């Protein structure tokens, strides 16, 4: 895609095919010879890892759907049937359940990578925004998938999240309730809700796959960013994607698959919640309703705001903010390697996200004992939420203007082949 095609069909058949459907030419140019910066490190393997896990989720999901019954009276039983009676059903189900966690782990690393190396900056704004859309679709898909086993956490997570819309009642009376009823297909979370969530949970991964296609397309126009954040200036700065990055990515996918196998075979219930092994019961509310770990930071933000509507706006704004980053960052330098000040704020931001995740997992009335006083955790969540927003809306624009970046290297090739210092 960047530069003229170098594909030369070698046989009668491929010449024939090339003038009708240039599929091999497309593959040749986008996968085999695609010029890729020669200095991509471990953190750049997560695109391949994510593609792998999208595949795992779709394949295991399709087989699980052959056995799953989206009916409020039968869903829990059908999942137990998969765990007990379907041949290797337990393996498929644990792969799918833990695959979601691996998928999110990989997407967070991928996003932090993009943040650190400034991969959202011109000319990659659309690439970044497509990524934000993929992430948002992943959140939706994961949430609906979590509802499907119809355990206690499934049911109550669906109830809590769909009820967030009712906060809109504070803006226009009845508006939120009408939306909630429309989402449920009933006057409460029930069979109709479960059915539509199943339908959408099956649909959305294919939408994700399509947006991933656009994401890769948008990547292949400007080409990859790289840890130095400087442009590729000539052929000496890049390597063909194959075999260099196919070999490198395959190795890291292998390592990630090992971690995946540890979860699936030896700790399959670690990321799960015991309450979800209790069938859904609309009459009994669990003591603590918590989402899966990958949504805990947002849950902490939501709970830290006492006013429901503002809480919901803060939650939605936290994801929406990501779409504006390309224009919030005023620095001319992409990579944080050369931004001594922003680099520190970046790592504080990573710690902040982990802190928010931790706080989201604590019960609502938890406290820390500091110097003899009980400080409610909600105050730390507020502090964490404030930093999350400040990082994007204050630090990114301001630090970019104030900071003096370090000198950038002349070229990728020079810095790789004869490392400075």
């Amino acid at each position, binding site marked *: 895609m960047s530069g003229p095609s170098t594909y030369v069909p070698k046989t009668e058949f491929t010449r024939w095919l090339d003038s009708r459907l240039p599929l091999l030419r497309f593959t040749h140019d986008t996968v085999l010879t695609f010029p890729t910066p020669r200095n991509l490190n471990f953190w750049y393997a997560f695109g391949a890892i994510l593609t792998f896990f999208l595949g795992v989720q779709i394949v295991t999901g399709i087989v699980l759907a052959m056995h799953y019954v989206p009916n409020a009276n039968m869903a829990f039983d059908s999942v137990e049937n998969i765990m007990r009676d379907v041949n290797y059903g337990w393996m498929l189900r644990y792969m799918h359940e833990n695959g979601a966690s691996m998928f999110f782990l990989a997407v967070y690393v991928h996003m932090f990578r993009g943040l650190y190396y400034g991969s959202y900056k011109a000319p990659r704004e659309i690439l970044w925004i497509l990524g934000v859309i993929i992430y948002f679709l992943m959140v939706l898909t994961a949430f609906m998938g979590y509802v499907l086993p119809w355990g206690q956490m499934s049911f109550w997570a669906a109830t809590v999240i769909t009820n967030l819309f009712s906060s809109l009642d504070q803006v226009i009376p009845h508006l939120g309730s009408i939306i909630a009823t429309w989402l449920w297909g009933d006057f409460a979370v029930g069979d109709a809700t479960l059915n539509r969530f199943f339908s959408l949970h099956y649909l959305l991964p294919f939408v994700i796959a399509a947006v991933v296609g656009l994401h890769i397309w948008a990547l292949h126009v400007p080409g990859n960013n790289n840890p130095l954040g400087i442009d590729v200036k000539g052929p000496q700065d890049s390597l063909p994607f194959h075999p260099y990055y196919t070999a490198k990515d*395959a190795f890291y996918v292998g390592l990630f698959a090992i971690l995946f196998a540890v979860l699936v075979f030896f700790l399959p219930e670690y990321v799960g919640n015991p309450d979800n092994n209790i069938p859904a019961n609309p009459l009994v509310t669990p003591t603590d309703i918590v989402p899966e770990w990958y949504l805990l930071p947002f849950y902490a933000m939501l709970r830290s705001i006492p006013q429901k509507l503002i809480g919901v706006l803060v939650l939605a704004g936290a994801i929406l903010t990501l779409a504006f980053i390309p224009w919030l960052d005023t620095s001319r330098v992409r990579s944080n390697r050369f931004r001594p000040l922003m680099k520190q704020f970046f790592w504080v931001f990573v710690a902040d996200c982990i802190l928010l995740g931790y706080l989201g*997992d604590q019960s609502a009335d938890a406290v820390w004992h500091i110097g003899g006083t009980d400080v409610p955790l909600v105050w730390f969540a507020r502090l964490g939420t404030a930093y999350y927003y400040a990082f994007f809306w204050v630090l990114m624009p301001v630090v970019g203007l104030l900071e003096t970046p370090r000198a950038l290297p002349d070229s990728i090739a020079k810095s790789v082949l004869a490392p400075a210092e």
Partner: protein
Amino acid sequence: MRFALPLGLIFGLALSAPGLAAVGDQAPLKKMDWSFEGPLGTFNRADLQHGFQVYKEVCSACHSLNRVAFHTLSEEGGPSFTSAQMKAIAAGYKVLAGPNDKGETVDDKGNPLTRPGAPADTFPPPFANEDAARSANGGALPPDLSIIEKARAGGPDYVYSLITGFGQKPPAGFKVTEGKYYNPYFIGWDIAMPPPLSDGQVTFVDGAPNKIADEAKAVVTFLAWTSEPHLEDRHRIGVGVMAFLIVLSGLLYLSYRRVWKDAH
């Protein structure tokens, strides 16, 4: 709360040291060494068979085991009863029969027609429905035990602590509700279940020791199996998968190094 430990360690937060336990808070669970835990864990066969006997003679008076089919009792990775033993166990239970050749579903006295259990049947429940169960148990519902150890935080340790946790003196000031029992491992401390086990309550067919601790260990092992019947398969396959992936990753690493040899 599941991630409190790893994340707490990341932050080095000794700040959240547990405060004074409030009334009704769960006591720290007894931490047992279970044969089925750990990456290579397997069930102890004798415990599984003894545990089945404890369930049958004690727990099943109130607790159903709806998701467990008789045939699994003789399958690999389970209690490993012989096929003949399993069929005898199944036949010892009466399950609801379908309509007879006259189309009747009840006998002359209006009782539902029953037949002896077959291997494909699941354990029949002790009560006809939830109302009957609550009515017979002072309003409390004895939960189904099929996946109980995956449905409670602490799993096997929780169930073990709970069923061996009776008979302690309630703290001063805590009044046990009439008709309930004090058990510090039950959240709220007031449990409707009477102490289920006592020394020598179940006489094991092979004459194995039958103190409360033995009976509890056996039934907890049995219920760990009903909760995760393919655990041994999972561990065995997992070891093979790990070995494969480690060798594969090793080869991928070598090919990666070789491809990149000239690129640096």
